[in-house]
């Protein structure tokens, strides 16, 4: 009797999650399926989609040089910005976690760039800071150094965009700090008695204890970094010489400049699969690491 009553009440839950179910179907599941379908069509939005089989994918891989350029740039961008960002966030979080006075103040200060980092205003600022006669170069000149073509040379432009991403390490740092607070104090005390040094404690205690947050951080940043758009679009508009022409810009051009919806959908699915592959590799890796945490040294 009790059980029946409970289930009846429990079923009310469907009513409450119904908006999400609808939203999921209309704004997530349907678009996901539709873009897969469109990727096998030619579709310039005014007409109707015509089925062309694998043509879009074949064109992309066989004759679209800009596809390769944008993919290469994006991989470079991801592997340049992501490690710098995560490592900076982790180091700063570990330092702040040393019962430092004023931790709340520092945390706030470091977090500020993360709030506005993706905005157009900050992209404009970045352009003003790093252009040839910009503030950074004038400061370098003031110190007796030569100017660096931060944005005007293809050798530096992608790096300068990555700096904008690294500058926003605050959000990852806050997550690390929350995780570090959960690490039991007595682990460090025990290690100290055993004569372990700070570096050893970091690798043997801290890092294993926060692996899940570390992986979550990397994964979320990875998914975001693959899709970064605003900086490359506003600061450099893909240039110079396509050196900052990221995948998201390519996707934008095909879809909303040339209205090649079928081709752009194919591009989006290739990106999706790439992200999935990275995620899968990552999960395998993280399972191995988590196993160590559970069945390892302590």
């Amino acid at each position: 009797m009790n059980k029946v009553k409970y289930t009846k009440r429990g079923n009310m839950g469907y009513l409450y999650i119904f908006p999400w179910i609808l939203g999921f179907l209309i704004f997530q599941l349907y678009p996901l399926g539709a873009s897969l379908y469109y990727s096998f069509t030619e579709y310039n939005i005014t007409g109707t989609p015509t089925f062309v089989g694998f043509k879009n994918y074949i064109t992309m891989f066989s004759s679209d040089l800009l596809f390769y350029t944008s993919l290469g740039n994006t991989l470079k961008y991801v592997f340049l910005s992501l490690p710098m960002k995560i490592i900076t966030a982790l180091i700063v979080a570990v330092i702040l976690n040393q019962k430092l006075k004023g931790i709340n103040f520092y945390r706030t200060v470091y977090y500020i760039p993360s709030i506005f980092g993706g905005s157009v205003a900050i992209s404009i600022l970045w352009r003003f800071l790093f252009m040839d006669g910009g503030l950074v170069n004038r400061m370098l000149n003031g110190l007796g150094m030569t100017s660096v073509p931060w944005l005007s040379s293809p050798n530096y432009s992608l790096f300068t965009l990555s700096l904008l991403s690294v500058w926003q390490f605050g959000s990852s740092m806050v997550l690390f700090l929350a995780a570090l607070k959960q690490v039991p104090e007595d682990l460090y005390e025990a290690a100290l008695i055993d004569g372990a040094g700070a570096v050893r404690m970091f690798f043997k205690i801290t890092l294993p204890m926060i692996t899940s947050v570390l992986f979550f951080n990397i994964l979320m940043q990875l998914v975001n970094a693959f899709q970064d758009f605003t900086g490359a679009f506003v600061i450099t508009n893909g240039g110079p010489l396509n050196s900052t022409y990221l995948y998201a810009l390519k996707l934008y051009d095909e879809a909303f400049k040339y209205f090649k919806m079928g081709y752009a959908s194919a591009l989006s699915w290739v990106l999706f699969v790439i992200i999935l592959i990275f995620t899968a590799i990552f999960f395998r890796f993280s399972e191995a690491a988590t196993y160590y945490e559970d069945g390892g040294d302590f």
Partner: protein
Amino acid sequence: MSGKEKKYILTFITHLAMILIGIVMLYPLIWMLFSAFKTNAEIFGSTALLPAEPVWDSFIKGWKGTGKVTYTQFYINTFKLVIPTVLFTVFSCSFVAYGFARFRFRGKKILFMLMISTLMLPNSVLIIPRYILYNKLGWLNSYLPFTIPALFACYPFFIYMMVQFFRGLPIALDEAASIDGCNTFQVYWTILLPLTKPALFSAAIFQFIWTWNDFFNSLIYINSVRKFPIVLALRMSLDATAAANWNQVLAMSVLSLLPGTILFFSAQKYFVEGVSAGSVKG
């Protein structure tokens, strides 16, 4: 050197390093603020932080915008886009979170996992069919592509955050209220919702700042200048002024960050709570 002295020196060095990092982090923003009050010649003529002769006309001229539309209009547009989106998001997500947190029904676990996994779903792969759909519905060049999806709780991050929050509230509250004759909606609306204010605030602030700064979606969905939110106006001013009016562009950039800054500092507590509860973009 005694252990205590060593510790003092170490603490001192740590603080020094933290302050240096802090300066590097904030200097660009401070420079932007002061440069908005500099003359165009001075912005790229000197490395001094403070303006030699502060000017105001960068704000006045900048506000006039480019073409016939002023920033008054751009601000109104932005609020028209952001406010409903924020309100709809907060209420729909809280409603759904209540369902996940307080009821046991068949398939809940799978649905919850599904909801969380959409956190990883790249927006790029959804954007084209959405655009085509909104085009068919006649929603392009309006704020409906922002506000309507917000009604359907399409933000797993906020749902997750609020589920966590609901779980922290004692179930005895619900039981006492339902003994008093409250139905499940009354329990939600009159008992639990007021208690989840911190989570609601936190979600509202995040959503406000993200929507306010959302450039990509504005770029593809809004195409007439009269309907531009601030982010598009800023980018337009950057194109239009080319080399001439740096200080106006900076002045408007500063103003565009102002509402978010005020929110951040007035509700910092909620911010950090929110970030710590789950993940965060950017």
